[in-house]
């Protein structure tokens, strides 16, 4: 009530030279941000995640070589001035390939997480609001998908759908000569997104449903209902901001597991195909020679390990920052 009246005053106080107000009104998110930045581990996580995003965005521009460039005179070299992390068994610069791999990993992680959150959100809301039958149907669906080993299901989807989709894309290209379908390597990525999104959505559907059901029993929601606030306003004003915290935390952890899953699919030869650079296929193609060329497998493995660790630190920090009441239950 007094908030609107005091707003202009606060504004003038914030201007340079004026006295700072003693107790500034803190927002939910500002508070969370402060808690996040106070935590040393989450700062490390934030740094690693920012570096990864930087490498994903600008890596190809910064990379000293192209990911397919072969230097046949310098095959399987140890790190040197010309090749910072050495070269692989067919003379490609390892540092450049790690940078390109960062783009692959980030693309897959971000897109598959986004798609699965979307599916999970829709089904979670349907289950939470749709009454007993809708809840039962969504519940069964999540149970079924969750009772399959996620990695195998994603691999099965990738392996069965790849050829039909690629054949279809080639057919489209022959008929229309649409340049998008000339090169089908992006379809590899698309299929990996789809496969991972399909195995990841159940956790979001469950989480969002649970949040809706438990938050609707909170007293402040019941108070809002009793004074006649509409359901949509309650959902947007009260449920959404409160349910968002756990979802964001889950998404962060999901980024690292999606990255690991992409590497796993590529390792199994059903994800991102060589010569495209993926940390998974880099590890796979060099794991046989770990005893005499250890750096070839150690570089992508360590990169993946550091990046997933960084994202997990960030997720843990976000968990403490956004859900201060929880005791690291995740």
């Amino acid at each position, binding site marked *: 009530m007094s908030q609107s009246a005091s707003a202009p005053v606060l504004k003038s106080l914030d201007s340079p030279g004026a006295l700072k107000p003693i107790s500034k009104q803190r927002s939910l998110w500002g508070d969370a941000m402060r808690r996040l930045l106070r935590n040393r*581990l989450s700062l490390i996580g934030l740094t690693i995640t920012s570096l990864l995003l930087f490498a994903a965005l600008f890596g190809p521009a910064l990379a000293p070589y192209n990911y397919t460039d072969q230097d046949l005179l310098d095959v399987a070299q140890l790190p040197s001035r010309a090749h910072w992390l050495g070269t692989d068994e067919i003379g490609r610069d390892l540092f450049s390939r790690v940078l390109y791999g960062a783009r692959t990993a980030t693309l897959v992680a971000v897109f598959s997480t986004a798609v699965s959150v979307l599916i999970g959100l829709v089904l979670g809301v349907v289950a939470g609001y749709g009454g007993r039958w809708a809840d039962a149907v969504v519940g*069964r669906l999540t*149970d*079924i998908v969750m*009772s*399959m*080993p*996620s*990695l*195998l*299901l994603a*691999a*099965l*989807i990738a*392996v*069965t*759908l790849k*050829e*039909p989709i690629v*054949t279809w894309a080639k057919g489209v290209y022959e008929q229309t000569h649409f340049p998008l379908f000339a090169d089908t390597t992006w379809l590899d990525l698309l299929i990996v997104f789809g496969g991972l999104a399909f195995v990841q959505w159940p956790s979001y559907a469950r989480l969002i449903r649970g949040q809706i059901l438990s938050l609707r029993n909170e007293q402040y929601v019941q108070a809002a209902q009793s004074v006649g606030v509409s359901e949509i306003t309650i959902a947007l004003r009260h449920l959404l901001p409160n349910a968002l915290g756990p979802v964001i935390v889950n998404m962060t*952890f999901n980024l*690292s*597991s999606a*990255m*690991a899953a992409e*590497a*796993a699919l590529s*390792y*199994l*030869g*059903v994800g991102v195909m060589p010569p495209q650079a993926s940390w*998974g296929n880099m*590890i*796979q193609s060099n*794991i046989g020679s*770990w*005893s005499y060329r*250890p750096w070839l*497998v*150690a570089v992508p*493995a*360590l990169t*993946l*390990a550091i990046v*997933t*660790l960084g994202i*997990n*630190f960030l997720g*843990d920090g976000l968990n403490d920052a956004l859900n201060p009441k929880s*005791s*690291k*239950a*995740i």
Partner: protein
Amino acid sequence: MLKYIVGRLAVAIPTFLAVLLITFTLTTLSPFDPVAMMMQQYEGTLDAMQQKEVVQRLRNQYGLDNSFVVQFTKYVERITHGDLGISINGQRNVLRAIVKTFPISLQLGLAGALLTTLVGVPLGALAALKQNSWIDYTIVGSTLVFRSLPVFVLAPLLLVLFVLILGIMKVPRGWDGLFNPKTILPILILMLGPLPIIVRQTRSAVLDVFSQDYVRTAKMKGLHIWLIIFRHILRNALIPVVTTLGFVAEGLIIGTIFLDSIFAIPGFGALVEASFRNFDYPLIMGVTMVTSLMIILTNLLVDLVYPLLDPRIKLE
């Protein structure tokens, strides 16, 4: 209790059927044509006319011209008879290949599960008892390292560390039974995967129990702290840990997929990896079915054991 068991089974069986339906539908979309595969053996011996005839006969024989529903029911029927088909690569009986390799992975998996519990529960309890101290941060932070870190990342790094840098180990390869120094590294790697789940679950469960009235009463009575921990806290805190068994089982199964080829273990994981690498669809369907069955059975077991551990849980 009987009603409860029947109810749980009534959920598990349709779930398993749905899993079969998903794998079956996916493989019908795949480019794999079993008849074309069988025709390979006649290559060069039949002319085009005869070939067509044989193809038609085979399609009839296997009911491939039937509708999707009929095909699926026949598939389920064959599975109930234990017929999982013949692999494309090497023409092996899929069920026999699974039965032959599974015990090895089961031994490794059980050893991993046992070890991860023996290490994870004390670590989780310690972290909870020393909440917000450096011990807590170290335990929680270091288990975060292993969360979502795949076996194929951990294994080569540990191999390089133990064999090349420290030199305390010969290259472990092959399988000579569970109680052989070769299995130390594989079991260690397997156990690290599910460790974070166990540690975190134990930690939060202990924290939860710690604030209960009966613990405070026990403290006020002057009971020794170790007695409180063992008799009052751990006994109750371990109940929710049991629920994570399903995740642990899945983590162990996924782990063995990568473990077996790296350490040349002739286990179930090696079979899974080979099936995907060779696009061997009958084998892929078989291994996916068996792993899903394992996860469903583990969850069923948890559901059945849980009410015995915690009498407050109502049987529905």
